[in-house]
């Protein structure tokens, strides 16, 4: 299922000097994704470049939601490199969006685990703009800042699987079934992970001091 406004549903309009090397890009951007995937499977690099351009925004948003902005660039890059190396094995071209999402989730999960083994980052996501993007900031600026201050440290402490489940469902708007598919688990498992994450976040919201004790 594609979501309204999803970048998987419409081509991105990002243009960089590098993308100009793809001849006929504007016209080709309108090509069905499955056609591009079939061509990329056959080894056509230009077709794959167009897929990168088409799915870049969605993939970067997903990676940012899970690992944060500092690491999202690397995760996104790893995702597309892996996709290029493995696209020959993709059985159904129409499954490409879900397949790519799954790669991104797996790479993000690995990144979180590696980061955990290295210890916490100095400033979480180092994202000072996040509070500005929280909704209703004009009418509830204090609440928005408070939410960020309380939620961000706690979000960073969620287990990787809980964290990516929350991002897939609430951040990206995927259904539970799609969230489960992207996570490689059954629907029931995705639900239980979501509930566990929410329960933990709610508990912290009720008692903000709990965060500092963990």
């Amino acid at each position, binding site marked *: 299922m594609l979501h309204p406004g999803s970048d998987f549903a419409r081509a*991105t309009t*990002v243009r*960089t000097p*590098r*993308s100009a090397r793809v001849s006929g890009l504007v016209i080709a951007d309108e090509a069905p994704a499955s056609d591009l995937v079939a061509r990329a499977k056959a080894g056509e*690099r230009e077709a*794959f*470049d167009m897929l*990168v351009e088409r799915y*870049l*925004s969605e993939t*970067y*948003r*997903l990676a*940012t*939601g899970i690992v*944060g*902005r500092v690491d999202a*660039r690397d995760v*996104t*890059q790893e995702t*597309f*490199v*892996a996709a*290029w*190396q*493995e696209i*020959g*094995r*993709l*059985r159904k071209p129409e*499954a490409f969006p879900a*397949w790519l999402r*799954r*790669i991104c989730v*797996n790479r993000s999960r690995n990144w979180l685990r590696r980061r955990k083994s290295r210890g916490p980052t100095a400033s979480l*996501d180092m994202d000072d703009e*996040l509070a500005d*993007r*929280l*909704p*209703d900031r004009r009418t509830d600026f204090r*609440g*928005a800042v*408070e*939410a960020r201050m309380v*939620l*961000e440290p706690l*979000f960073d402490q969620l287990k990787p699987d809980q964290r990516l489940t*929350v*991002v897939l469902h*609430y*951040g*990206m708007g995927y259904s539970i079934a799609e969230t489960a*598919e992207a996570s*490689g*688990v059954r629907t029931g498992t995705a639900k239980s992970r979501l509930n566990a994450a*929410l329960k933990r976040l*709610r508990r912290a*919201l009720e008692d903000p001091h709990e965060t500092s004790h963990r």
Partner: protein
Amino acid sequence: MNDQQIRDYVRARTDVDTPPDLLGSILDAVDRAPARRSWLASWAPIGTVAAAMAMAAVALVLLMGPSRDLGGPSPDASTPGPTRTAEPTGTHSSEPPPASAGDLIEPGQSIQIAAVDSVGEWGSIRIERGEDLGGYPDAQIPDGSFVIELWIEYDAERLPDPPTFGASDWALRPTDPNAERFFVVEPQHWDRISGSATRPEDPLPQYPGAIDPLTTSTEGRIAFAVDRRTADLRLELLYWPSGFDEPAETVVVRLPGNPPPPVEVTQE
């Protein structure tokens, strides 16, 4: 604060613009990325040594007779010895059972079996008998060996638990557990070096390590380097999933008979 604020916070985390230079960086990285074949080729020297060691181990087992080490599936597919030995079990049978309709004796024969894990059936596996080969003209195989090839295709209905499957699921051994020369051969390392120009098909991959078995085909060739002195034994293929104490399925793949003549390496 409430659930709505949690949802707003998570949504805000994903509300980001793509850095303008990221597309170029990714396309450059894809340019630099090695092809899958290159990755396989990088294993060739290691695989050659490992395969040679495998044959040495097989030969040792043949000379020493049955071992007391009951072979079980290796917990770590990246480090197992290519050959494991097993202690004879069951009753002695001087007359091997006849080949059944489910056997894979002739090249081109195929069967389908259930892919199983600790929970139950998670998909199906199609196995097709390949050829017996005396070697490859462009890949060195261990002296005194011949090759038994099979083609494996997994069709996953769900992810197995644990999500470990592929090349490490398979092994070869004599059907008679009381055979004087009892051994088990695994294909992992040998499998990689046989990805040669004369055999362009991909070797069977191993999960985890690859991606998304639900949407990506999991298929490939497995090749066993078998000591020529075992050609008089009836050999069976073992489907031995991770976590199982015994094979989940056995299929006869070779009856006693002369192995194919050796093939000299003429292209490197």
